[in-house]
């Protein structure tokens, strides 16, 4: 199992992109990623380590779980952006507090208020068919916003890939944009979930 042991020997912690030997790009060929994942999983399979030392077996298990995490993260376009911003130092859990721009907070606050009005209308036993229609309109509008933010994320992701070889100032700018979009997306996703919950209860 020389291939497996050489890859498990290295002490260096590889980031998820490096594990798959791909550049830190946000556009990833899915079928290629899947194929690499399957090949590497196969090499790390416990059956291949039956005669290995305990240490080697442990390492292969560790590598295998890392590989799974890496695949799960890179496969998901949103988790991929989040992860990239993390390793690039733009988005560190707990370390750097995320700030939302005031306009976004205003907008989210207002959307939440309108959702609350609908909730109260329901609680006070108002006409349910009318209410349902309003909730459906709200849901459609939130879904549209989610679609918009996803499209913007995609275009920012393409920009990131294009700046990979450009100066760091340009990359910083794209990263800030990606981060902002992720934050916006997380608010809108919440609204989508909440309105769906309301609709489920009507």
């Amino acid at each position, binding site marked *: 199992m020389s291939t497996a042991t050489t890859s498990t020997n290295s002490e260096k912690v590889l980031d998820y992109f490096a594990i798959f030997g791909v550049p830190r790009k946000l556009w990833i060929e899915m079928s290629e990623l899947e194929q690499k994942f399957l090949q590497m999983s196969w090499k790390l399979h416990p059956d291949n380590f039956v005669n290995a030392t305990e240490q080697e077996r442990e390492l292969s298990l560790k590598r295998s779980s890392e590989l799974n995490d890496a695949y799960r993260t890179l496969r998901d376009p949103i988790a991929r952006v989040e992860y990239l911003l993390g390793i690039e130092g733009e988005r560190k859990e707990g370390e750097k*507090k*995320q*700030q*939302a721009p*005031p306009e*976004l*907070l*205003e907008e*989210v*606050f207002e959307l*939440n*208020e309108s959702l*609350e009005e609908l909730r109260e209308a329901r609680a006070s036993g108002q006409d349910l068919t009318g209410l349902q229609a309003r909730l459906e309109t709200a849901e459609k509008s939130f879904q549209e916003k989610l679609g918009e933010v996803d499209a913007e994320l995609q275009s920012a992701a393409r920009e990131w890939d294009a700046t990979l070889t450009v100066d760091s100032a340009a990359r910083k700018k794209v990263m800030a944009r990606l981060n902002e979009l*992720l*934050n*916006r997306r*997380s*608010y809108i*996703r*919440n*609204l989508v979930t909440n309105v769906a919950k309301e609709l489920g209860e009507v």
Partner: protein
Amino acid sequence: MAYSEKVVDHYNNPRNVGSLPKEDPNVGTGLVGAPECGDVMKLQMKINPETQVIEEAKFKTFGCGSAIASSSLATEWVKGKTVEEALSIKNTDIVRELSLPPVKIHCSVLAEDAIKAAIGDWKKKHGAEVPATEKASH
């Protein structure tokens, strides 16, 4: 979810829910959010410009129970305090009072930020009226 008794109490009987006129020169508004969890918190205070005492405080929070409890508690605490006293409230005080678990500490941070933002907004409104010497000391 295992919320502490105090959190449940504030959640079920939130104090000072509502809003104050945003345009009132004596009202400071703080709107803050935690994008990671999608919470938004609005905290408003009516401050007497003569005495610097916070005479009224209102909040409205869209978020989890801990975020609501933290902001409800914050409005209770700032009422009757001076601006300086209110600014000394730390998120850790809120954590202690509500026995917030580590995963909910960010809710208390949000409440502290909201207090600071509201007072900041009020100070900005009074920026022109604040004597230069006092302004320089900040």
